[in-house]
């Protein structure tokens, strides 16, 4: 299998043969990759002993190694084709969901309001803290699904932000 794996602006062509051999940009690599239970992996490569916690994070593969988090995308041949057709990798969702169960203290935006990336849209109380939930994108609020004092579960959709009218070149 051939993959293209992207970290930040770097990309790697990685091939995994049926016999388990691993080639990076055409060069053979000696890799011993071992699951230690759950998301924990031990990697020994060129004698270096490393550990990583690897999780699938909504299509991205998140690798935590040495206290650093790397978000990667691993694309197989079909995905690469698909992506080339779409013209890019970037997909950022304008959905604000509840990261944990809690109580909505306040919705600080209204439908139709323009928000910048990082603007607070909802205040959620959980674990004795007031948590300010922020917009992941710049845009316009298209829908609000909750009210103040409402209890929400993890993953519940709270607010949706769509592209700004002037940003409508997509």
């Amino acid at each position, binding site marked *: 299998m051939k993959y293209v794996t992207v970290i930040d602006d770097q990309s790697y062509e990685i091939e995994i043969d049926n016999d388990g051999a691993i080639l990076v940009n055409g060069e053979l690599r000696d890799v011993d990759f*071992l699951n230690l239970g*759950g998301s924990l992996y031990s990697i020994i490569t060129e004698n270096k002993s490393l550990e990583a916690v690897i999780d699938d994070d909504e299509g991205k593969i998140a690798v935590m190694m040495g206290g650093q988090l790397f978000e990667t995308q691993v694309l197989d041949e079909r995905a690469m084709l698909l992506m080339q057709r779409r013209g890019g990798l970037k997909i950022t969702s304008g959905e604000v969901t509840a990261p944990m169960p809690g109580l909505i203290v306040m919705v600080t935006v209204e439908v139709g309001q323009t928000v910048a990336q990082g603007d607070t849209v909802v205040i959620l109380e*959980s674990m004795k803290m007031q948590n300010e939930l922020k917009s992941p994108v710049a845009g316009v609020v298209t829908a609000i699904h909750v009210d103040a004092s409402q209890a929400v579960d993890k993953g519940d959709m709270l607010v949706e932000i769509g592209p700004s009218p002037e940003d409508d070149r997509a």
Partner: protein
Amino acid sequence: MAEQLTGINKILIANRGEIAVRIIRAARDLGIPTVAVYSDVDRAALHVRYADEAVHIGGPRPAESYLKKDTLIEVARKTGADAIHPGYGFLAENADFAGQVIDAGLVWIGPSPDAIATMGDKHAARLAVTRNKVPLIPGIEAGLSNDELAAAAKSIGFPVLIKAVAGGGGKGMRPVRRAEDFETALITARMEAESAFGNGDVYLEKLLQGARHIEFQILADSHGNTIHLGERECSIQRRHQKLVEEAPSVFVDTELRQKMGEMAIAAAESVGYVNAGTIECLVDRDKNYYFLEMNTRLQVEHPVTELVTGVDLAKEQIRIARGRRMGPTENVLHPKGWAIECRINAEDPYADFMPSTGQITTMILPTGPGVRVDSGVYRGSEITPYYDSMISKLITWGETRSEAMLRMRRALSEYRIMGLKHNIPFHINLLNSISFIAGQIDTNFVEQRFNMNTYEKTPTATQLETVAIAATLYAHRERRLASQVVAPAKRDASNWKWMGRFERMHR
């Protein structure tokens, strides 16, 4: 004077989590049995498992269980407990509860209700300590309306700090840097204070720039002895929540320790304080120090003091409550070695420290020389939204600060928690930060000058390639498991020869 000894034959712990476990351990080391209380979601919690007795007291919300004063006293009576230890948080600084405990003929393991009440009311506290010439931060008093506060903020001059009268632990506290942010900050601070303490009253203080949060541990017994056990450096904070604490502080020399220690003793004596307590101060770049507040209980970060003084503070609390003379007798001007504590919280440092809930599916603790873990959880424990997000406290000791830091780095790299997001990556990056290593920190360091995405240790090309390989092998494996395209017989000859074997072991 003959010592007035109070018999303590059994202690009820009106708390949960790591501090309940900490107190159970102290009681065990003194040979005193303990009674744990628990809410619906805490039946399998470590404090319930480790206590000699355990009584279910209600629902998961604190108001339904850990805050039910009458129930707690009734449980003490029913189980024959003759003393109550409140831990920190919940009812620890509730003067009414302390009074009720004492009125019920039980021993309250903490200071007198009067001392709690005075220090718990920021206005009264400022009045009290001023009498003993303790320096205060410029600010205005409580009880004002929103409009009056807005006006006062302008007259003090931004930045200002909104603080809850009944506050503690950073709750109901908001720094405001611009006039236009004042109203929203005021509303959320009041709401948070109302929800946490049932009291939404706030006051204002001048926000000192570049100041450090340094606090002194106090011990006082009922025989008139009050001493300090040196300082703790707690400047590594985020939203006024401490994240890392050290003892001693790189900023405090013996002379400053002596001066501030005497001030701390004077502050405690101003309310006739007995038991363990903490005087929190801000110290500016010129070593001017200002009294912030007194915490009338055991602090979360007490272990760093224990490791550099050899004093077991939880045991001393019980000893003092029994009416005995406390063990240590002298101010600690020369702490032994260095200790650092990292609070391990269920918070995602990559998503604005958002709390995370879930079940702990893997927990591998760091062990070995110089490492202490204070924890209330184990593999299988659930971190719920009902209580705070602290999973455990990781504390290391070294002969020098650098040894303590090296051991902390090592311990952090060994610690494995899975099943939820946690802030170990934050601590690893902090411990790699040149400013932290050099001790150049203040209370704004984390929020203003630290960033999880600008590592002091830039990943090398080799590291990045390894990450890419790991991600690819992971994805390949997931997809193969999903589609079963590769014959399993092929595996044995591959580089993955160990995987099958080990996974069988771990099934």
